[in-house]
């Protein structure tokens, strides 16, 4: 596939912390990590999804002025960014595994008419739903 969504960015409070979380805890891979002065373009991807990148960006100069960056940091920390969904084959197994790695779960796995979902947050406050589809 050559057309479609290639990358979606998240705001994170600290790119090193986010990198450690998404790679060491969730099992993502680094796709791109390049710097230009203060600016750091950092994307990761799910090992099963080579055509999609998740960007991990720190709000701040030169892209955002200091006041706007502070507002964005507050919004992220309040969990006000839109929901993110991670599909998994086995939600309960993934929950046990990620919880053992220290992921902060906000909701234990729940059955809903054949699907199972759980909720967790990244260290910055971005909220994920982890969903196992109906089999």
């Amino acid at each position, binding site marked *: 596939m050559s057309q479609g969504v290639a990358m979606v960015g998240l705001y994170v409070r600290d790119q090193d912390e986010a990198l450690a979380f998404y790679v060491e805890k969730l099992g993502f891979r680094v796709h791109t990590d390049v710097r230009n002065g203060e600016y750091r373009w950092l994307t990761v991807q799910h090992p099963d999804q080579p055509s999609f990148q998740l960007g991990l960006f720190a709000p701040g100069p030169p892209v955002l002025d200091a*006041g706007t960056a502070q507002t964005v940091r507050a919004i*992220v920390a309040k969990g006000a960014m839109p929901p993110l969904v991670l599909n998994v084959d086995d939600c309960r197994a993934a929950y046990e595994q990620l919880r053992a790695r220290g992921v902060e779960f906000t909701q234990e796995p729940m059955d809903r008419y054949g699907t199972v979902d759980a*909720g967790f947050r990244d260290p910055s406050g971005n909220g994920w739903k982890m969903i196992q589809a109906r089999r």
Partner: protein
Amino acid sequence: MRVDPASQDPELLRRLLRAKDRMDASSHEAWSVRRLARVSGVSEAHFARSFKQAFGIPPHRYLLTRRIERATALLRDTDLPITEIAFQAGWGSLGTFGRTVRDVTGESPGAIRARQWATARELGCVPACCISAASRPHLTIAVSEKRRRVPSGINGSEEVK
């Protein structure tokens, strides 16, 4: 008091979010300010003030919106008796449950159930938590104040006849 929420320390906000998440996960439990403050690692006085500043609603009122959301979901998705739903959602008595739901939503639990069941279930492709959140009431005033007003729909958009 109107303080710019962006002036709050993001580290504090992240810890306040943790208390909000805990209420979300277990809205049927009793959440004293003391317990919530401990989750956030701040003093009780600081917690109540900071939470309202951050999320625009006092913590106990936020909890009430989540309980009503949960009760509404149980009314819609299960055929549990209403008494059982009252207890599962965190109320100690059926009377308080019915009165609070009517005050906030303008409908009795039984009427909510009847209306929800009459509506076709066509939301299968939206994550269940998002459907549930859409039925969360907007509690911009205290429920006791609400009782003194003419019911006109909790978000101002519905006519109650």
